[in-house]
């Protein structure tokens, strides 16, 4: 078990390095850097001015070099610029070069400075992640129990009317992406179009003070799309368990149906959905970006959208690192959890 976790960790770190390198490469492409120079300097810069701007700020170094510096395993650049000013990667505002630390990458917890929000990236990420955390908490509170209940009810009597109607409901929910359900919900429940204006169409107020009126629609919009998928997996797992030998034995012994479902079947039926729920996290990020943009809830997804559309390289890199990290950690948890929950699987 320990060796298994170690190996998984190794693969995870390798994956994280590869993915962050790809993100780094894509954000540091020449056209992106030129756009950055023009937005930071001025839009009528000549090509030579752009080149010297980028050279002076270390953007013209080779890609592995830049990546190493950003990661914090190579010393940050110190470049005497063509305009006579000496700039260093690790030099803070108004700080003499000699006092600056040699290394300043994400390993040293230096995430850079956002050009859009004019703030340290680490502060922005922390603040936005907390807001998204709140959203995700409520999404999980709605989605997981809802999906498990639907799945178990549908799966305990395969082929019954309940099964068929609940399966249809879960197919409809998997076929409704967030941008469709969100738009439909807002149109139906937040505008006077159908006379059912019960909720708020924006969740901006929910950032400070979340309540049922302003937070219900974003939560249910994200929850609905994932719910159908988890419910179908739970149903498949439940029907499989219900045909197992030991359930038949219990039924023949005369144990009543409710006890069989709750005591005998449920525990085994919930192993598979656990993995599925964990693997839903990367997809939930999709939903988070869409819903936060749609409802104007300024969380992590909204930040991703802003960083990407305004070419805010450092912020985009940090957001990517965090999301890749979340995805990989959930994969790791799902792998380990599966082995842990299911005694039939032994890793030697």
């Amino acid at each position: 078990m320990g060796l298994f976790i170690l190996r998984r960790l190794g693969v995870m770190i390798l994956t994280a390095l590869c993915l962050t390198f790809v993100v780094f490469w894509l954000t540091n492409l020449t056209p992106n850097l030129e756009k950055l120079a023009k937005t930071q300097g001025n839009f009528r810069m000549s090509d030579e001015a752009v080149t010297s701007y980028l050279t002076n700020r270390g953007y013209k170094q080779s890609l592995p070099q830049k990546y190493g510096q950003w990661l914090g395993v190579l010393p940050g650049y110190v470049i005497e610029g063509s305009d006579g000013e000496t700039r260093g990667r690790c030099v803070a505002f108004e700080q003499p070069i000699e006092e600056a630390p040699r290394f300043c990458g994400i390993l040293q917890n230096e995430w850079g400075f956002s050009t859009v929000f004019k703030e340290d990236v680490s502060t922005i990420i922390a603040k936005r992640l907390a807001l998204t955390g709140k959203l995700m908490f409520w999404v999980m509170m709605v989605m997981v129990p809802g999906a498990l209940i639907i799945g178990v009810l549908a799966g305990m009597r395969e082929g019954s009317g309940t099964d068929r109607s609940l399966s249809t409901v879960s197919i409809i929910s998997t076929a409704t992406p967030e941008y469709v359900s969100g738009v439909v919900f807002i149109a139906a429940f937040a505008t006077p179009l159908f006379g059912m204006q019960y909720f708020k169409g924006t969740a901006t107020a929910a950032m400070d003070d979340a309540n049922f009126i302003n937070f219900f629609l974003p939560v249910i919009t994200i929850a609905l799309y994932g719910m159908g998928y988890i419910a179908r997996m739970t149903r498949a797992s439940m029907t499989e368990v219900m045909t197992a030998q030991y359930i038949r034995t219990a039924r023949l012994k005369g144990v009543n149906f409710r006890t069989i479902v709750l005591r005998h079947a449920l525990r085994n039926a919930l192993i598979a959905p656990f993995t599925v729920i964990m693997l839903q996290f990367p997809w939930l990020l999709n939903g988070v970006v869409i819903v936060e943009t749609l409802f104007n809830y300024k969380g992590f997804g909204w930040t991703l959208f802003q960083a990407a559309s305004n070419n805010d390289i450092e912020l985009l890199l940090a957001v990517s690192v965090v999301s890749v990290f979340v995805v990989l950690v959930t994969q790791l948890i799902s792998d380990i959890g599966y082995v842990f929950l299911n005694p039939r699987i032994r890793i030697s």
Partner: protein
Amino acid sequence: MEPLSWTGALGTFLNPAFGIAVICLLASAFIQMVLSFTASPMRMQSNADGTLVKRGGFLGMFEQTTQAALWAVILVILGYIAVGALMPYGQAGIIGAMSKQFFPVWILLTVMFVLSIAFKRHLGLYGKLFDSIVGMIGFGLVMFWVFTAILAGAFDMLATFDPLTQVSGLKNKTPGVTVPDGTVGSIPHYLLGGDNLARDIFSRMIHGSTIVVAIAPLATLFAFMVGITLGLPAGFYGGRLDTILSFLANLILAFPVILLFFLLVTPEIVNSPIPTVMAMVLFIFPLIFFAVLLNSRYHTQPAKRTPILVVVLGVLAWLYLSLISQEGTSVAFLPNWFDLFDINSGILVVFVSVVFVNSPTVYRIVRGLALDLRTRDYVAAAQTRGEGAWYVMLWEILPNARGPLIVDFCLRIGYTTILLGTLGFFGLGLPPESPDWGSTINEGRKLLLIFAHPALPPAIALLSLVLGLNLLADGLREESLKD
């Protein structure tokens, strides 16, 4: 002309009927669900004289009521559509007028369903689809949009106005509004109202279907080519090849899709050589696939193999070269007279990224199936016969893996449609005036709280297409499991 109401004269008796049917359906379904926890399930009892009797008590009664109410709802909806299509224009309101516009689609659908049901026993898996209600509903929804897309895209039918023409005075107007005199269009109304640039929402929705129906299945097909060509050897040989390919697939799968889109589908990347290079790599897979497929089959008969390969590969290579050779980019090597078509670079990058995102999942599925099927007897028999590895993979394993692959193909088209919509929703890739559903939803959402009607039709259209594909996949899975 008067503005149209939703149902017109038809509504006076169909609306109450519809309301009653829906209320009955919901109430009965709810009672049935509550009862199913306590009451004993319905059982069939066989009598001595060979007849069957349903013994259901209360629960059985409500189960039958639900079914009857469901049929009633379907009948009323069909009534709206059929009667609306037959009544003169304007009498049956917006729904009737829309149904009239879709008249060619209804004819095609009816013909297709009648023919398919009549010959369903001779049509293999496709025919079996017509044994399951769910599958039929799904297939109907999908074909509705396919016919719409073909008729609108290739024959310029169905749409009432030009999707890009703005008519002054119709900005954000509600459904059924009358257009001013002298507007070029086939009917005097904006059936679903005008959007924030005073364009006809109904026509935009129709034209949007062409884009979606053209891109989504094709992108899925390419993803399948890539996934199959790489997944079969990975599963069949295993070993180091499998380890490397699986690591790469997991790498792409661990990349959050939305992030990849934001990084890949930007104007800077569109103008860079990256999409073309990715297209060169991804689009070579169909060539490899068909070359190996045909060669492994006919390599013992060179007289037959060589002409087949030359023709097939020649056509494919020509398509491939025309596809990647773009005028004005770094890979414009084909002379103009030889270049069949040029793809808009925005659409190319959307296409490439959708294929790129989908292929690792297909790879994993194919690899799993190959791992499972390579231990079968018929594989051993083929190997004993002395067949080559690629023959075994492509002509023994692949045909036997078709069931799950066809089901996943349907699901994946739906998923690709959702991805395309996501791209449109964030305004990535496709031009902003493009009528595709994602972009239209994006346009509509900006004023959603004031004018909700422009965003709803494309949203519902997208929902119905994806739902149709999911139901179709469900029906296919059910029927293919019965074998």
